[in-house]
């Protein structure tokens, strides 16, 4: 209900015209992908508003999205293609025409494709069109493709998909409407920015208890009902101690474990045998269990069994016990007791016990029931849905540690034991999840990488055993980033953070062209930035660059632009078509599958082109099979919009699921619809296909859901998805390390595989921490996402940078007092890898052994069209300078299973800088000079005055 305008008589115009046109599209100030309405006046953006109907943000916008105008009109926007003429890093470029730019790229790339396609490394950072870019790499024929997942949160994705067939990240969500107890581990902001905030608001309004486990008490933790400020890297201990308590007290949902997890599956216990630790299976490869009614071994997938959770049985002459028993025995051990872990976690045992008791109480005493009748996978009817209203969410506080894979699995284990996955009040899958654990396909590249031929499949996939690794006959890595090797066998997202180092070292081989898109590798997405910059400029004795060609597609003058040989300037997000596809990172919610588009709402005023269109153009010039038609003419002459509508990955399956079929009446599958984009625009640029009501929960076992998902093309078969308490693929690697099978790790990796490929969650000290003298480096150093900045992009935004133009180092008062450090002092942060100077801010709300700062606020002098004396460069700092990309044993600073970059393992000491150094940071990287066409923005900005004049 709105108020009507009073007759105040003060001459204020209470009904000014806001826009002559309002267009919907999708925000891209971050990866949350909210729906927006762009108000345009005289062709300029007057205001950006959240789209109330949009499933992601329901009308709200975050701090970034609300500053979109300044992102769109940023002075750091690139203007025209650039060709390097000076040394790399000198920013000496000339502007060239698009034709020349594309010819150069075509020349370099066609030479590679003709000879050895893997000499192209195509890495795409914060890409939101991975289904296109991945396919492009496949058509090109290189396995060397990945986006940012490897340095982001592959631990969460992989642990999740191998355990529950879904994951945290933005691929699942708490049941905000029903949960009574919400535990959040290591989240500052996450990709689901607005959904999480909307959800927390709902929890607060309902008075549900919200517990935040996080060394820092900021943001979400600030409004938590309880803050558990544990020591970084110890969540696994904390969670498994809770598991210990629950097991001891019998507070476990056994019924759920039997129905929905592999708890009853029998596991061989036969030391030294090749099958030791593997799941016992019948001749159809079905897992086996012990049926207590028939007292026999039978398929665990049958509906009519009463499986044992304990006991020891003889299967094929080997001893086999239920996975549940292995799990229970392990965590019942006193070494997992709260008292045993309290000190390492920095959390009193009594708190751990209380949390365990609270979880048990809410899960089992405050059970909820929704009157939704449903049918399970076996055809059994249930008249209601039982919910255990405990929900959990976790992100990079867990994943960015080298023990993150196991810690994430530990959290999923806790959820499974409480019976809270995809039940009312619990954690919910968003379609296309759940998927099989793990789903197909396998990573491509194994069956040869041949000149002028596409790769056998999509470069990234899910391995299930040593036979899937991407190794040649001599155990050498097939991929430049060494993903899917013994060093990181389950690197499901690749290792973007290792590409530059490996290519420069020529280990496993050298490359010809590094093609980067949307990744600021010469600054904030690299560990040890200095070394990365040196590598980008490293030369052979003959003066040739070790990475001969670097092509970079960015929209703005980021630090990395200066290191490219060829720069392909992209549009801003308001100037292009885009596709937020279910084949990519979907924007679904727990009750619907959704996808969306971006439409150009303003026309570029510069000579820039949308990268996706450029990529298709390049593909056609290279004659990549999918990108040309039979007469070798471009298949998508209309660019990306053409592709979005007409591309089919399989018959009837294309980038967008909505309004398919020639007449636009089909959803999910259907022939291309020439008017599909119009249909999207008419609907606010998104499509939301609701899951049938009776399939809103228990998706992993809900017949209606499984059938619906199969129909949508999300699942190959409408079969139950069994969650994996016990993760068999890990054991396969372990057995190889023990000398079984044809493919075995080299000796140097055996012990490591043996140790870390434990099929049940384990905890170990993060590697970097274990590698240093912790008395010398007593503190953990972390970064957090500021809610109002997106990585490095925010600083070019005249509004966002005013909020945070300098990041300080937050430090506990007591820790500072010990070092005679006062508020606002400048300090040296020193790790084994280097040091950086920062200004401290003393606080109470942080774990006493931890310091932290806002991520990616510090900037290289001169970058982003900022004045070189801007605080971002003179007072802000980048913690990356003290994070090493390698461990002392020369391995990458990553999780041993997934290769996830372990950003948060670094240990530091903090000391007050000398008196004469109390004057700013030590940004001694040299100044970058803007390329042609880019100038520092105006001193006085009066955006909006035109609108006012027009209104008057």
């Amino acid at each position, binding site marked *: 209900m*709105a*108020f009507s*305008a009073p007759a105040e008589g*003060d001459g*204020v115009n*209470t*009904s*000014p*015209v806001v826009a002559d046109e309002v267009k919907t599209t999708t925000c891209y100030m971050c990866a949350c992908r909210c729906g927006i309405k762009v108000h345009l006046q005289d062709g300029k953006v007057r205001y950006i508003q959240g789209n109330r109907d949009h499933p992601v943000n329901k009308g709200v*916008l975050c*701090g970034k*999205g*609300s*500053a979109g105008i300044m992102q769109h009109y940023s002075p750091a926007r690139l203007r025209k293609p650039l060709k390097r003429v000076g040394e790399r890093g000198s920013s000496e470029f000339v502007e060239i025409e698009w034709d020349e730019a594309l010819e150069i790229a075509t020349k370099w790339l066609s030479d590679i494709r003709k000879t050895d396609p893997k000499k192209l490394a195509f890495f795409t950072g914060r890409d939101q069109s991975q289904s296109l870019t991945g396919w492009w790499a496949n058509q090109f024929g290189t396995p060397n493709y990945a986006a940012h997942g490897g340095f982001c949160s592959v631990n969460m994705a992989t642990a999740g998909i191998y355990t529950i067939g879904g994951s945290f990240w933005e691929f699942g969500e708490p049941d905000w409407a029903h949960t009574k107890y919400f535990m959040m581990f290591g989240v500052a902001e996450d990709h689901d920015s*607005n959904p999480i905030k*909307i959800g927390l*608001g*709902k929890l607060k*309004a309902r008075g549900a208890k919200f517990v935040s486990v996080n060394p820092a008490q*900021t943001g*979400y933790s*600030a*409004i938590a*009902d309880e803050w558990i400020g544990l020591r970084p890297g110890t969540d696994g201990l904390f969670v498994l101690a809770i598991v210990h308590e629950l*097991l*001891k007290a*019998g507070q476990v949902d*056994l019924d759920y474990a039997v129905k929905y997890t592999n708890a009853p599956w029998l596991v061989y216990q036969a030391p030294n045998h090749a099958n030791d630790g593997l799941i016992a299976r019948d001749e159809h490869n079905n897992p086996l269990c012990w049926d207590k009614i028939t007292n026999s071994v039978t398929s665990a997938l*049958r*509906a*009519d*069994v*009463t499986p*044992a*959770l304990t006991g020891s049985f003889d299967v094929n002459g080997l001893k086999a016990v239920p996975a549940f028993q292995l799990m*229970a025995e392990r965590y*019942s051990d006193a070494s997992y007791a709260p008292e045993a872990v309290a000190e390492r976690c920095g959390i009193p045992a009594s708190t751990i*016990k*209380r949390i365990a*008791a609270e979880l*048990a109480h809410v899960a089992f005493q405050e059970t909820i029931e929704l009157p939704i009748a449903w049918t399970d996978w076996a055809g059994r009817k249930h008249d209601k849905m039982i919910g255990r209203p405990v929900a959990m969410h976790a992100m990079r506080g867990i994943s960015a540690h080298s023990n993150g894979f196991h810690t994430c699995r530990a959290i999923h284990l806790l959820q499974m034991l409480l019976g809270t996955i995809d039940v009312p009040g619990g954690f919910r899958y968003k379609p296309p999840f759940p998927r099989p654990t793990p789903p197909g396909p396998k990573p491509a590249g194994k069956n040869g990488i041949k000149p002028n031929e596409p790769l056998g499949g999509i470069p990234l996939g899910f391995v299930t055993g040593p036979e899937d690794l991407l190794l040649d006959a001599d155990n050498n890595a097939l991929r430049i980033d060494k993903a899917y090797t013994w060093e990181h066998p389950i690197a499901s997202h690749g290792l973007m953070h290792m590409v530059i180092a490996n290519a420069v070292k020529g280990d496993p081989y050298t490359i010809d062209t590094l093609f980067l898109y949307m990744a600021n590798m010469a600054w904030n997405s690299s560990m040890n930035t200095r070394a990365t910059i040196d590598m980008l400029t490293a030369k052979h004795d003959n003066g040739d660059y070790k990475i001969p060609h670097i092509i970079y597609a960015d929209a703005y003058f980021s630090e990395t632009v200066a290191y490219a040989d060829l720069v392909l300037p992209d549009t801003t997000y308001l100037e292009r078509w885009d596709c937020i596809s279910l084949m990519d990172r979907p924007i679904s919610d727990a009750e619907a599958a959704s996808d969306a588009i971006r439409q150009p709402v303003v026309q570029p005023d510069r000579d820039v082109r949308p990268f996706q269109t450029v990529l298709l153009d390049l593909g056609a010039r290279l004659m990549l099979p999918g990108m040309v038609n039979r007469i070798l003419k471009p298949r998508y002459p209309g660019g990306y919009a053409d592709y979005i509508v007409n591309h089919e990955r399989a018959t009837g399956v294309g980038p967008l699921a909505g309004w398919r079929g020639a007449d636009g009446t089909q959803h999910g599958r259907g022939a291309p619809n020439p008017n599909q984009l119009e249909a999207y625009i008419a609907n606010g640029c998104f499509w939301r296909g609701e899951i049938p009501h009776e399939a809103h929960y228990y998706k992993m076992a809900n017949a209606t859901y499984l059938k619906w998902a199969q129909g949508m093309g999300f699942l190959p078969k409408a079969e139950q998805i069994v969650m994996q308490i016990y993760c068999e693929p890990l054991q396969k690697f372990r057995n190889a390390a023990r000398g079984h099978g044809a493919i075995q790790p080299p000796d140097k990796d055996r012990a490591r595989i043996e140790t870390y490929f434990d099929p049940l969650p384990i905890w170990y000290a993060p590697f970097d921490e274990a590698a240093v003298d912790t008395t010398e480096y007593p503190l953990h150093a972390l970064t957090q996402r500021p809610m*109002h900045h997106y990585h490095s992009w925010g600083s*070019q935004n*005249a*509004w966002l940078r*005013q*909020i945070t133009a300098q990041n300080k180092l937050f430090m506990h008062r007591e820790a500072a007092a010990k070092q005679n450090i006062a508020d606002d002092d400048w300090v040296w942060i020193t790790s084994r890898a280097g040091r950086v100077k920062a200004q401290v801010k003393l606080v*109470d*709300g942080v774990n006493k052994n931890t310091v932290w700062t806002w991520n990616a606020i510090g900037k290289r002098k001169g970058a982003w069209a900022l004045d070189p004396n*801007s*605080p971002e460069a003179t007072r802000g700092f980048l913690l990356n300078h003290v994070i090493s990309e390698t461990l002392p044993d020369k391995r990458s600073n990553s999780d041993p299973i997934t290769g996830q970059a372990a950003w948060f393992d670094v240990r530091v000491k903090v000391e007050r800088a000398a008196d004469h150094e109390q004057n700013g940071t030590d940004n001694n990287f040299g100044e970058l000079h803007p390329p042609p066409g880019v100038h*520092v*923005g105006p*001193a*006085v*900005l*009066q*955006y909006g005055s035109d*609108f*006012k004049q027009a209104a008057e």
Partner: protein
Amino acid sequence: MTSLPDKTDKKLGLVIDLDTCVGCQACVTNCKEWNTGGHMAPLTDLNAYAAEADGVWFNRVHTYEVTGSSACGASTSRTMHFPRSCLHCEKPDCVTVCPTGASYKRTSDGIVLVNEDLCIGCKLCSWACPYGAREFDVFEGVMKKCTLCVDRIYNENLPEEDRVPACVATCPTGARHFGDLGDPNSAVSKLVAERGGVDLMPEMGYAPTNKYLPPRPRKDTATSVPAKELTPVAATGFLGWVDKLLSR
């Protein structure tokens, strides 16, 4: 003009929930975006891309650490985010000190506004405001401030559901509420009553219209969830207890 109305027909204002605000800055930038093209346009930014950037903003969010409050609970302190904008006071000196009549409080809805055409830029009103809610546009030489989105809340060019202040419409957590605080039956008045909404600096005697809902007590004690301590299962031990019939 600068005499305060004895009474206003409505008391439109905001209610801000400090228990829910996560400090995301959405209200800050959305306010900026709306208003830089709105009634007080533009909200000039000086040194926008250089050192000492300094712009006009109507809404700013602070971060504090609070100890000793009943809301803190068992842990030592809590972090609190605190959005601050004009509180549209009932008895503000910012209006009465104004020598030109540029500052005024509307009789109809209680909104405190500045008429830029009358303002001489003497800054006295900003000295009189205890809440730092007045922002001088150095470049334009006039005082600016939160208008309570007077060009939105009645705007017939907008759909009815959008006729709320920009900061309220955008707040992702729903920590900001808008309504008539003069009407005891309005949703905002009820919320204030229910949650014990407070005035900032009541000792100033400005009678702010906007109210703040203080953080609720933390639930980090055993009693907040009535959970019994966990005790080991029967003498048979855990695995014995597990040994019951469970069907798939």
